[in-house]
């Protein structure tokens, strides 16, 4: 996978081993970063992360219809640790690494 974009990185940071719905994740993102995220962006980004194997996805249903639940996968957790270490080594602030920079280092 490529180096994650700032949005992907922020979402990976928010995810835990506990499952969270897309709507709750968008709310959490808004609360933590102060920026709103459209549902379209969220689901597209999460699909990319899922394709990379960083996120586990489960489909469910409630009274309103379909719900998609996300949690970080083992691979994602490992990658997150590596990313944090990598960032510390660079001395970079959170979300400061530009998109596509040092591509493939984490592979």
């Amino acid at each position, binding site marked *: 996978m490529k180096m994650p974009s700032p949005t992907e990185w922020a979402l990976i940071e928010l995810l835990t081993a506990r499952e969270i719905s897309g*709507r709750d994740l968008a709310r959490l993102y808004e609360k933590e970063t102060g920026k709103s995220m459209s549902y*379209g962006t969220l689901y597209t980004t999460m699909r990319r992360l899922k394709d990379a194997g960083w996120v586990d996805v489960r489909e469910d249903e409630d009274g309103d219809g379909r719900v998609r639940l996300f949690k970080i996968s083992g691979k994602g957790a490992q990658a997150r640790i590596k990313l944090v270490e990598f960032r510390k080594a660079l001395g970079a602030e959170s979300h400061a690494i530009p998109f596509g920079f040092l591509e493939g280092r984490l592979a």
Partner: protein
Amino acid sequence: MNGVPKLCELCVIRSRQEIRLNKLRLLTEKYRMRQRLLLWLMSGCLASLMILGAGAVIFRPEKWVETASWIALMTVLGALGQTLLVRFTLRSLEIDSARQIRKLDVLGKFRFLLPRACREDVDLLQSDLKKDEREMIARGLTPSFINIVKAWHICRFIVPYLFDGALSLLRALSPLKVLLKIFGKG
């Protein structure tokens, strides 16, 4: 047992309450109808004024043209403003639930324009919006505001896909452009 009403008394009380409720409903409907009628009459008057003004500009002699054009301009602006006002008021009078369903239907129709992998996102968005709507209603926000928020979410969802579609269309057409250039030169 004087304080406790009998079953027949309860029935009477209930039927009275129902009659009152029905009267209220009728009054509200009459009020709405009267409002609609008044608004349409006003806009009709303005529209006729506009036509008169336009007629004055077209058919009157030259000395009248200046005044008549001014009247025509004012009436046009007035009629436009009034039409917008009438539409806005009528929409706010409509039953809100019907409008909400219509908006979510737009998403349902849009679903078929998407690639198959993204179609599921529409279902997810619809269920998320339903939850958002319920939350906003519980917070006591006005229906108009709720509709604006929903429309905003829908637009933010649709626009990137439309942009992506337009780009892919351009990409598909670009070889054609190259061919046209080659043959054009030849």
